[in-house]
């Protein structure tokens, strides 16, 4: 007698959960679609030049002369290129990853393998706590502490020691710029990468580790040849999550990047502007553009940022599989390393 009821409930669950799952995809497509429509006049006006152009100018908003290109109007002198901001986003994220990945992995290994359980619990909780700190706090710390500190000594030290590498050569700048933005971002993404990596490492089967230890391998060999290969896919996923956060971060970067426009960075001490930070800082004045082109151009910039983030996330499975092929472990997902 209860059977039809159960079936109905079963169907209900199937339909609801299916709808919920589809809503993710639906909102993704909807956001992409809306942004595309909103950016369309800018896409028409700027063409492919948007992708590699350096100048970003709303044109003469207080003149009455308009130019028309591909049927869309903009104030005279308007031209939009995102290369400066694209470079800023990619380079700050790259520096953040270079700094954050080794640190995060060390933290994760320490927490799972080295620290006594009680310390591990406390330290782990602290790392997770760090992930919850609002980004404006990091920004303030960056502009008041990191930037002045970098300017005082470390930048000159880098020039002296690594100056033979083109991007490390002087002249040093004001402290705000690529390096400080990268470092602040690194501190922001370390908790994310470390916390996920720790969970992944903790799930490496115990007997595997014990087998290794029984063979008399050192702790370093245990990490290098058993733990990391086994947890690789999960760690890559953690790194990609961190990268996503770094590329989308707005407020903290806005405060320490030096907001460069129209100029590409010369070295790692140069001021930069990133896509996310630039959208925030230019939106208000863009609204004075009576043709609306300035806002459409910012929409195209958001669209580009969205697409880049999407591509990075879609690349994870590919990268993970590639890593697995090289190291010989089987691919796994979401930190579930598949046993051989």
């Amino acid at each position, binding site marked *: 007698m209860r059977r039809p009821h159960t079936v109905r409930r079963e169907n209900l669950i199937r339909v609801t959960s299916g709808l919920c799952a589809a809503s993710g995809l639906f909102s993704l497509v909807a956001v992409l679609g809306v942004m595309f429509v909103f950016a369309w006049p800018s896409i028409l006006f700027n063409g492919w030049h948007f992708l590699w152009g350096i100048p970003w100018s709303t044109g003469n908003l207080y003149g009455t002369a308009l130019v028309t290109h591909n049927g869309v109007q903009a104030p005279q002198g308007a031209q939009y290129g995102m290369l400066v901001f694209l470079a800023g986003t990619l380079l700050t994220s790259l520096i953040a990853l270079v700094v954050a990945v080794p640190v995060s992995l060390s933290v994760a290994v320490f927490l799972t393998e080295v620290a006594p359980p009680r310390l591990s619990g406390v330290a782990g909780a602290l790392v997770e706590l760090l992930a919850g700190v609002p980004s404006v706090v990091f920004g303030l710390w960056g*502009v008041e502490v990191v930037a002045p500190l970098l300017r005082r000594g470390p930048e000159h030290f880098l020039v002296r020691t690594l100056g033979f590498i083109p991007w490390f050569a002087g002249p040093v700048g004001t402290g705000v710029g690529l390096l400080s933005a990268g470092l602040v971002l690194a501190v922001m993404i370390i908790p994310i990468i470390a916390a996920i990596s720790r969970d992944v490492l903790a799930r490496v089967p115990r007997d595997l580790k014990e087998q290794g230890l029984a063979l008399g391998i050192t702790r370093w060999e245990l990490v290098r040849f058993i733990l990391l290969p086994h947890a690789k896919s999960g760690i890559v996923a953690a790194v990609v999550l961190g990268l996503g956060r770094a590329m989308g971060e707005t407020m903290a970067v806005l405060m320490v990047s030096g*907001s460069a426009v129209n100029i590409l960075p010369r070295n790692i001490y140069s001021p930069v502007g990133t896509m996310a930070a630039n959208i925030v800082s230019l939106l208000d004045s863009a609204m004075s553009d009576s043709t609306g082109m300035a806002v459409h151009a910012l929409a195209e910039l958001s669209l580009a940022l969205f697409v880049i983030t999407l591509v990075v996330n879609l690349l994870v499975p590919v990268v993970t599989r590639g890593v697995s092929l090289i190291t010989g472990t089987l691919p796994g997902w979401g930190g579930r390393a598949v046993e051989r």
Partner: protein
Amino acid sequence: MAKPKPWKFLAGMAAALVLVLALAGCGGPAPSNSGVSLLETGSTLLYPLFNLWVPDYTAKNPGVKITTQSTGSGTGQAQAVNGAAQLGASDAYLSDAQMQKTPGMLNIPLAISAQQINYNLPGVTGLKLSGPVLAKIYSQSTYWDDPDIARLNPGVKLPHEKIIPIHRSDGSGDTFIFTQYLSFSTPSWKDGPGFGTNVSWPAVPEAIGAKGNDGMVSALEQNKYSIAYVGISWLAQATKAGLGEALLQNRDGNFVLPTADTIKAAADALFDKTPKDERISLIFAPGAQSYPIINYEYVIVKQKQPDADTAKAIKDFLTWGLDPNNGGAASYLDKVHFQPLPASIVKLSQDQINSIGS
């Protein structure tokens, strides 16, 4: 039992419709007899003034409810134009292009503001600068002992260090008036970046952007050999931080600091030229004593309001704000470092306010 109940459905729809209408009504003035509500949004510089005005005004006029928002001049302009806000606060008047697109917008000056040029150059006080020299500093890498700077400052010992020009990274009325000073005094700047609340800054490797006037002052403080334009309300902080304040060359060739007298001189000098719609730049005014970077602080209002109650509420509030014995009193303006409008300009603004109707 499972028969559909159309009246229930209809009742639900009606309830939803009422709810939607009520919500839609929130944006505009409430038509009920409980009073009129106005929304002010825009300039972060005018925001503190409105916040001083509104409690005092609404205490005397309980029928009006005024909400204030600090969003930025561009937002103030846009929302006044599209009707999302009744009062759009802006450091800049609407452009000709905007006026043509949406006729019937009023640009009403409420007060006068100014801007100083601060620099971080230990041991150097009273530095003299001109528009063309500032345009050069913001256009290309320049040393402090550049011949053009040295010529204006005979006898001053200038270091051979590169200047760090700081500009606002966010859209700002301060950028608007600073770039107007450069445009009006330097043809090459006018043909290049021009002026606006945000301009396409020339590629100077040393240049950095800072957010807000607080960011400008702290960037100046942190960077020796830097220079920046800062709103006059931050003069006290800048002086306390040990920053220098530059004397600027005005149209007559004299070097002046922003004081109540030099600001008033500039406003008076341009009174005859002020058109009825009051959309005029006060930058680089003639006159021996005129300070070159001052501007009107505007409230942007639609001349034709949707109903008589709203029109009256706006007129009453702005009239009160403009009145030198009420909102225009020194007790309000001093707190936010604004200068009062000359009596003649008060009259022009009042004429514009009187033209608001429904």
